[in-house]
């Protein structure tokens, strides 16, 4: 296959393409690979057979309503919680057997940025830098505090800080040892609009300017939409959808919902057409993610097959997409736009 491809493209093109692919693959190396991850707390399944991958340089959005299993998954990535089943590989190493090495390269803010309230911002940063395995200089610590706008408050105790200041200090703690992977669990919680913008810009800067991989969880799609290039939506511990945000948000595509007099008949008719490829599986309602310009043709085809349409509802925005998925507990979509 490679030979045919090479002949067809010409040798120079082949070498060029190969180099491009190698470069692409190098930069797109997998940072996190999660396979069939599950976590049970007695009878409650918090995470259910979850699989996803995060590539190098991604800003990976981790979306779900409160209680969806985001924090449990993130805690498993940070070895705070032991999975019931499944595997986690980070930097292509098994997390359980290479815990120390892997955690040296991770910085995290987990839910609230709780720090030692009776210590100063400087002392907190210094302590966690040392715990991360580095010997921080005063210059490094002050630069880090400068970056999050807390240099003037370096010697003040954290108990005197606002929630936003604590959040910024938490991010400084996460970044102080220059990790390759940054995990931010609900980083904009409790922040004012300016704080939210600052965090958003910081996340984008970490990815674009410093080549970091960032996993950011949120229950707000609007947040993820603005920073992430790839995302996963989880609900009741299950993956609902994973893919490129751009594709999921592609204005040329639409998520439509059909209401008919007989949905099972409509589904049977769809199975005999090309439209079946767009049908979302395991949903109680007929939902299709498809090119917007082909919707009229779909309607024509359905009518020609005697499907009696009651309504057709387009849901363009990711917000609606998210709501439609998470409001329907039986929905389970695998890598819709991967």
């Amino acid at each position: 296959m490679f030979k045919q491809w090479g002949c067809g493209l010409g040798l120079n093109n082949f070498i060029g393409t190969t180099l491009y692919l190698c470069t692409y693959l190098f930069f797109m190396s997998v940072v996190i690979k999660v396979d069939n991850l599950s976590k049970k707390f007695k009878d409650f399944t918090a995470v259910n057979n979850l699989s996803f991958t995060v590539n190098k340089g991604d800003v990976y959005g981790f979306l779900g309503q409160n209680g969806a299993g985001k924090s449990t998954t993130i805690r498993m990535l940070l070895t705070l919680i032991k999975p019931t089943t499944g595997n986690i590989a980070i930097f292509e190493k098994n997390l359980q057997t290479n815990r120390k090495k892997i955690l040296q390269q991770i910085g995290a803010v987990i839910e609230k940025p709780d720090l030692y309230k009776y210590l100063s911002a400087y002392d907190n940063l210094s302590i966690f830098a040392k715990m991360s395995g580095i010997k921080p200089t005063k210059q490094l610590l002050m630069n880090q505090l400068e970056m999050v706008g807390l240099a003037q408050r370096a010697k003040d105790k954290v108990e005197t800080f606002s929630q936003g200041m604590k959040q910024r200090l938490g991010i400084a703690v996460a970044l102080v040892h220059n990790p390759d992977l940054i995990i931010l669990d609900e980083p904009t919680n409790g922040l004012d609009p300016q704080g939210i913008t600052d965090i958003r810009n910081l996340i984008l800067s970490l990815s674009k300017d410093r080549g970091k991989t960032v996993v950011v969880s949120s229950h707000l799609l609007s947040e993820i939409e603005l920073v992430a290039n790839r995302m996963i939506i989880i609900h009741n511990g299950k993956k609902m959808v994973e893919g490129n945000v751009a594709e999921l948000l592609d204005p040329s595509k639409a998520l439509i919902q059909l209401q008919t007099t007989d949905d099972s008949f409509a589904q049977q008719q769809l199975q005999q057409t090309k439209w079946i490829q767009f049908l979302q599986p395991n949903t109680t309602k007929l939902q299709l993610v498809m090119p917007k310009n082909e919707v009229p043709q779909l309607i024509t085809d359905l009518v020609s097959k005697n499907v009696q349409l009651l309504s057709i509802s387009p849901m363009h925005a990711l917000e609606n997409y998210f709501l439609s998925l998470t409001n329907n507990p039986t929905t389970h979509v695998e890598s819709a736009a991967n």
Partner: protein
Amino acid sequence: MWNLLQIELFKISKRPRTYIAFIAIAAIVFIFQFAFKADGQSYMDLMLQSVKDDFTFERVKAINGYFMCYIILNTLLIQVPILVALVAADSISGEANMGTLRLMLSKPISRSQIIIVKFIAATIFTLLLLVWMAITALFLSMFIFGVDDMLIFRVKGDESQILQITKDDVMWRYFAAFGYATVALTVIAALALLLSIFAQNSIGPIIATVCIVIVCTIISNINVPIIDNNVKPFLFTSYLVGWKGFFYIATTEDGEPIKGSLENWPAIRNSLLILIGHIVGLVSLSIIIFKRKDILS
């Protein structure tokens, strides 16, 4: 590990509650010293009431620095476990309560290391408490009351005894007694550390530690043969006051004290080994449980 221990000691040193124990000890010792300076004679009269016909000695010199320290230790070493629990029971639960536990455990540090470092830090705190007790109860008392031969009042079986230790034979006994007390109180620290793993705030493990110490102490003091033989040997509280053994001097057949001797060294050694066994067991259990624990705080 050293780096982590430095961090732990730094954190302990910055917490106001750490100093409560030192202030409490100083206050109790000063009250004792003041009371004895003001009216020590009455206490001596009361204490020697039952044996005054059998013994003759110069009473004024009986209240000296060595004697004072012994009296203070007798009272204080029962209360100090509470002060040790105050810090040790906060080790893990305090971090969980503040939310720093999850951040700490997401760093490249093993959970075993964290428990060991927390335990060492609690042991150092216990040691410092005892050094502080030595400074206030022993050295300050020596300064206030002077030094002389030391008298020990003891009830052995049905008979009362007064043991006299010459002043040049006392100091090493105190060093040994403080060393023993450090080991005994470290058991409390290890117990508090174990209990702190299960809690999200430090109040629960502090109260639980104190309750366990109280219950076990009461059981240790019940004189019923079935408990004596089957329960007491396994309770750490049965060995907490073993430090007194260093002041029970051996005597000749004529009842003359033998300088530099101990009445029952094997019993002291066995007590020490049992206490160390408790420490090893409790810390090992802490490591095993903590390694398996899901951090949900």
